[in-house]
C-alpha cells in the first residue's frame, strides 16, 4: 500500500512539538459558471503552527488565492466550498459554522491583506476611521479609544506623523504606505493568523523590501502566524518556514523552506526555481522554461495534471494521478518519480521513496 499518512510528526523551529493554529483538510472549492463547474481547489491539506509562516507558491490559476479566500470564509455564490472540506480552527470546523461565527473569526482571529491596496480600502473613509472600525466591531471599543489605538498602529507600521495621517484618505498615500495601512487595519485586533495575498507584487522592489521587513518585525513581536501567497520564490526564501507549491488546484509539494529550495523533488518545483535568473548566479545560464500551459480547470484530468508539460513524464503519469509520498521533516511530494521503480538520472532527487505504511 502506498500512501502518506494524513497526520505526520512534525517538529517545529526549536525541535519542540508545536501546536497547530489552523489545519485545513481536503479543501475543495468549485465555481459554477455557465460554461461548467470550475474546480479551482481540488483537495488541499496543510496546517500552520503558531508564530510560523507558511508560503503558498504557484502561478496564476493554480488556486492559491481561492484557498486563501476559503480560509477567510470569503467564498460566495457562484463559488462553493464543497462538502467534506475541513477548516479546523480553535477546535471547530469553520466550514460548517454559520455566518455569525465567521464574522467573529474574520478580522478578530484571522485577517487578510490584499494585493491591490487601493481597491481593498474604502476610498470614502479616512484611514483612521477604517482602522477604528475594525476595533469597534471586534473589541467593542469606544470611538475615541479606537482612534487613539489607530494612531498607535499607524506609528507601529512605520508611517511618519501618524497623528496627521489618520485623518487622510487612502488616495493620499503612496502604494507602499497604503500597504502599510492595510497591515495596520489587519493587525488592529491582534489576530492570530494573517493571510497576505500577494502583498508586494504590485510594489516597487525597494518598497517590497520595506514591507517584508515590516512583516518580519511584526511577526517577531506579536507571534502572529502568516500565510503568505505569492508567485515570487525570492520573497519566500527569507520569510517562509514551510512552503506549499500548488499546481492545478492541488499541493504538489510541501515541506520546510530549506527542503523545497535545496532538495526539491518535483519537476515543477525544480523548473520554477530554475526559470528565474538569480542575481548572484551565472549570467549566461540558460533559463529553464516549461513549455505549454496548465490544462483547463473545467475538464477532468486523467493522471498527473503536470504530465503533459513534464520533461520526465512516464507512462503511468498519464494514466494515474500520483499518490503522496512522504519524507522526513514533513516533506511530501505528489509525483510518480518518487516511486522506487522510477530509475534514471534526474536533476533532482527521485526514486528514494520513503513511503509511510498505512496503519
Amino acid at each position, binding site marked *: 500500500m502506498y500512501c502518506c499518512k494524513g497526520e505526520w510528526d512534525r517538529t517545529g523551529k526549536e525541535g519542540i512539538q508545536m501546536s497547530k493554529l489552523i489545519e485545513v483538510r481536503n479543501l475543495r472549492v468549485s465555481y459554477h459558471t455557465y460554461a461548467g463547474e470550475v474546480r479551482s481547489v481540488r483537495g488541499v491539506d496543510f496546517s500552520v503552527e503558531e508564530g510560523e509562516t507558511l508560503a503558498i507558491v504557484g502561478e496564476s490559476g493554480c488556486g492559491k488565492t481561492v484557498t486563501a479566500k476559503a480560509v477567510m470564509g470569503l467564498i460566495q455564490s457562484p463559488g462553493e466550498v464543497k462538502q467534506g472540506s475541513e477548516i479546523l480552527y480553535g477546535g471547530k470546523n469553520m466550514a460548517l459554522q454559520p455566518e455569525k461565527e465567521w464574522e467573529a473569526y474574520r478580522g478578530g482571529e484571522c485577517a487578510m491583506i490584499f494585493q491591490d491596496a487601493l481597491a481593498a480600502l474604502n476610498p470614502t473613509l479616512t484611514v483612521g476611521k477604517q482602522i477604528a472600525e475594525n476595533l469597534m466591531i471586534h473589541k467593542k471599543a469606544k470611538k475615541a479609544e479606537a482612534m487613539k489605538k489607530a494612531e498607535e498602529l499607524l506609528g507601529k507600521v512605520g508611517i511618519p506623523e501618524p497623528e496627521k495621517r489618520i485623518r487622510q484618505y487612502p488616495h493620499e498615500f503612496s502604494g507602499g504606505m497604503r500597504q502599510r495601512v492595510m497591515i495596520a487595519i489587519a493587525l488592529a485586533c491582534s489576530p492570530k493568523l494573517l493571510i497576505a495575498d500577494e502583498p508586494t507584487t504590485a510594489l516597487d522592489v525597494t518598497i517590497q523590501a520595506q514591507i517584508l521587513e515590516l512583516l518580519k518585525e511584526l511577526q517577531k513581536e506579536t507571534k502572529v502566524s502568516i500565510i503568505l501567497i505569492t508567485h515570487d520564490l525570492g520573497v519566500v526564501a527569507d520569510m517562509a518556514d514551510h512552503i506549499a507549491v500548488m499546481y492545478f488546484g492541488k499541493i504538489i509539494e510541501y515541506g520546510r523552506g530549506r527542503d523545497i529550495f535545496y532538495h526539491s523533488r518535483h519537476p515543477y518545483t525544480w523548473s520554477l526555481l530554475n526559470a528565474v535568473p538569480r542575481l548572484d548566479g551565472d549570467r549566461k545560464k540558460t533559463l529553464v522554461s516549461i513549455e505549454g500551459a496548465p490544462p*483547463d480547470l473545467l475538464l477532468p484530468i486523467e493522471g498527473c495534471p503536470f504530465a503533459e508539460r513534464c520533461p520526465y513524464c*512516464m507512462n503511468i503519469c498519464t*494514466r494515474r494521478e500520483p499518490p503522496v509520498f512522504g519524507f522526513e521533516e514533513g516533506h511530501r511530494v505528489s509525483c510518480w518519480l518518487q516511486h522506487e521503480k522510477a530509475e534514471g538520472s534526474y536533476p533532482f532527487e527521485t526514486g528514494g521513496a520513503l513511503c509511510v505504511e498505512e496503519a
Partner: protein
Amino acid sequence: MNPEISEALLKEVEMDDAFQPAQKGRKNQEAVYERGIWYNLLISLKENRLAIVCLILLCVIILASLLAPLSPHDPDAMNLRNKLAGPSSEHFWGTDDLGRDYFTRALYGGRVSLTVGIFSMLVSVVVGTLFGTISGYLGGTVDNLMMRAVDIFMSVPSFLLIIIINSFLSPSMITMVVIIGIFSWMGVARIVRAETMSLKEREFVLAARNMGAGNLEIMFRHIIPNMVPSIIVAASISIARAILTESSLSFLGFGVKLPMSSWGSMLQNAQSHIMDNPMLALYPGTLILLTVLSFNVLGDVLRNALEPKMVK
C-alpha cells in the same frame, strides 16, 4: 485511502511499461480562456425569455410582411357593400371603411413601415458613424466644430421641420427615408465619437501607428470594427424610433401618400371610424407597439450583453 483504489493503483504500478518514459502524444485539450463576444451574446439571449419572445415576434412580423403578395386579397380592392365588416373566415381582420381586406392592408402597411424604418436606420448609422469617427479621431478644433454642428442639428425641432419639408416635397419612400435619416444621425454620432476617443488611446492602436499605418487605415481597420457592438445597439434603437416617427407623420397626414399606406396612415383612417369599429385602430396600433417594443428590448439586451465585463 480507499482500499479499492489502492488495488487498482497497485495493478497499474505493476505493469511493465509503467515507469518507462512516455511517448509525447497526449495533448490536454487547450484551455479556452475567454469566449468571443458573439458567443456571450447568444448565451445572454438564451437566458432572457423576453428577448426570445421579442425576437420571434419580430421574425414573424417581418416574414409576414415579406410574404404579403401571397395573400389572396388585393389590398386596394374596394368592396363598398362589405365595408366595416368584423373578422370572418374570409377576412381575418375584417374590412375597413372602403371594404378592403384589413389583414392584407396591414401586411402591406408593414412593408412600408419596416422599409422606411430599416433604411432610415442605415442612413443615420452610416452618416453618424462616419461623422463620429472622424470627429473623435481627429480631435481638437475639427472635433469642436463637428460637435457644434451636432448640437445645432439636435436643437432643431426636427419633427416640425420634417412636416414643413414634407409639405413642399411630394413624399415618396425615398424622401421619407432621407428626411428621417437626416434628423436622427446625431445620437449615433455622439456614441461613436465617445467610443472613438477611448479606442484611439488603446495600445493596439498605438501599435498600429507604430507599424506605419495611416489615419484612414487605423479608423477603418481598427476603430470602426471595435465599435460594431455599440453601433448595433444604436441601430436597433434607431429602427424603433424611425418606425415611430414615420407612423406619427403618416398619422398626421404628412407621411406616405395614397395609394401607398403604412400602419400610421391606417391609423389615421381608423380615427374617423373609431366608434363603429375600434379594431380598425387597434390592429395597426398594436403592430406598431409590438414592433417598436421588440426592437427596443432587443437593443437593451444587446447593450447589456456587449458591455465590457470586468476581466481578471
